[in-house]
């Protein structure tokens, strides 16, 4: 069994977001990068499946060299090898093309991704890759078990969940509680240094979309405080002032 996990290197969830160059570039200054939280769930489940079923586990990132610490961390957590497609991940379609190109060469049984990246939050790449490879894609997956060549899946839907069965190969976007996040141990960190990390150049077309400018939300006005003794007046304010109930 061959498993591919696609990971993003993204600003930490507490990062303050700001832009430079006339609001055309994300400001990386002082920002700590982490593995996408959802990608971490995908990787953690992949490591468990590898231990259970004896799979090989590759991580893939489409990104520039500064993503390598995140890739090394994935190797320390349990991936066997890594591929980095050396390109700025500008657009979901472009990223999906890169992932699909690698997947066509390597024929993975299972391609696990996060439900969404936390920078662009598209929740798109898994579906596009599934379509490009002509195989099913499901997201967000909360439970995944493999029995032979079949996957048993539970997926979140609005207000509940859906259970599914499908044959491999599959592309899945993962979220909690599919697995507990794994933390690298000392031995993992040592061996990760020598595990193979292959850098390949991008293929295929240009991006279909392009960011022209970034904006921050307008600053929030002051909060109107209502004394607890007069809590009831809130309802009147929501009716007459805010006009939303």
């Amino acid at each position: 069994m061959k498993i591919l996990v696609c990971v993003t290197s993204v600003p930490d969830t507490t990062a303050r977001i700001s832009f430079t160059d006339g609001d055309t570039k994300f400001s990386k200054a002082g920002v700590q990068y982490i593995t996408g939280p959802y990608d971490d769930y995908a990787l953690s489940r992949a490591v468990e499946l590898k231990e259970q079923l004896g799979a090989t586990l590759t991580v893939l990132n489409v990104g520039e060299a500064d993503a390598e610490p995140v890739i090394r961390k994935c190797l320390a957590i349990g991936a066997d090898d890594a591929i980095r497609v050396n390109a700025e991940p500008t657009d979901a379609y472009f990223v999906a093309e890169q992932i699909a190109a690698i997947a066509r060469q390597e024929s993975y049984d299972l391609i696990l991704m996060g439900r969404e990246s936390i920078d662009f939050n598209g929740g798109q790449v898994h579906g596009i890759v599934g379509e490009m490879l002509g195989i099913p894609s499901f997201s967000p997956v909360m439970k995944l078990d493999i029995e032979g060549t079949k996957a048993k899946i539970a997926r979140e839907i609005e207000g509940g969940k859906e259970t599914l069965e499908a044959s491999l190969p599959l592309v899945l976007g993962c979220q909690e509680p599919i697995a507990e996040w794994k933390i690298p141990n000392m031995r993992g960190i040592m061996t990760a240094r020598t595990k193979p990390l292959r850098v390949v150049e991008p293929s295929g077309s240009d991006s279909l979309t392009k960011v022209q400018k970034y904006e921050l939300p307008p600053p929030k006005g002051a909060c109107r405080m209502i004394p607890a003794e007069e809590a009831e007046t809130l309802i009147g304010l929501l009716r007459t002032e805010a006009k939303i109930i």
Partner: protein
Amino acid sequence: MSVLIFAELDQAADGTGSLRKSSLEAIFYGAQVAGMLGTTATALVIGSAEAPELELTGNYGATKVLHATAERLAQPNNMAYATVLAAAAGQEGSSVVIIAKSSLGDAVAARAAGKLKAGLVSNVVDLPEGDAASLRVKRSIYTGKAFAITEMKSPVKIITIRKNAVAPQTTDAKAAIEAFSPTLNDQDFVAQVTGVEKATGEVPLTEADIIVSGGRGMRGPENWGILEDLAHALHAATGCSKPVSDLDWRPHHEHIGQTGIKVSPNLYVACGISGAIQHLAGVNGSKVIVVINKDAEAPFFKAADYGIVGDVFDILPRLTKAVQSAG
């Protein structure tokens, strides 16, 4: 050359479909875009729905509705629905496709983008600018902490919109119904849905106009009654913070924030939630935020429009009464 809108149905227990509110917004959005591009809006409805429900798409601006009813399409299926959507876009010569964000809508959008080699932008919060050759859209990024003005230039452009991207105005116009039966692919039906568990009659969080949400300050699942009472009085959906769903006080699908659902209601009422940055990330698209917290220093007040420093166990029942007595 029309603008195509994928209009999602909610299936009632008896099998009849009703159009999702988010899809009605998408139709209105699509009709506005069509107006801008000098063309018409066509809605695509997949699954069982009665004629009056289909005609309703006209109230929101669609001139025509394509209705695909093949037996195999009765159950939502991202692959088959994307096949139908791509066929509809082909037939209509659509260069712009609009889809409301939802678990099905997201997947259909992505797979259709793969089929049509279409540029895809999701979480769009406003109407676009530009023309058919080049559209500029504003989308929410970094989990609501910023926006990106994004240019789309591919021949086919797919946009998924967030709740409240537009405020629909309706007319009495009716859409013309046209049966649609494109060729389906057997490979689209290889996965088997083995079960669906769904709270019935519940408004999905992403579509709710009002959300009353609770955090660890609620102290336990047994106390949710007072929060639900207020939600009920306001016709609101209920949500929660991550620790609350981690502790199994509330189901996972109610968890709001960076690693949960992102919501953009008209009103978000946070009860006993501290306002950690990861929680705020999921709610900062809300029009009005009310925070009730006993700690005046809780960070959530900085993101709030109205705040009450007080004990949820005292305040919530009083607010419920105030809503009820004001009728």
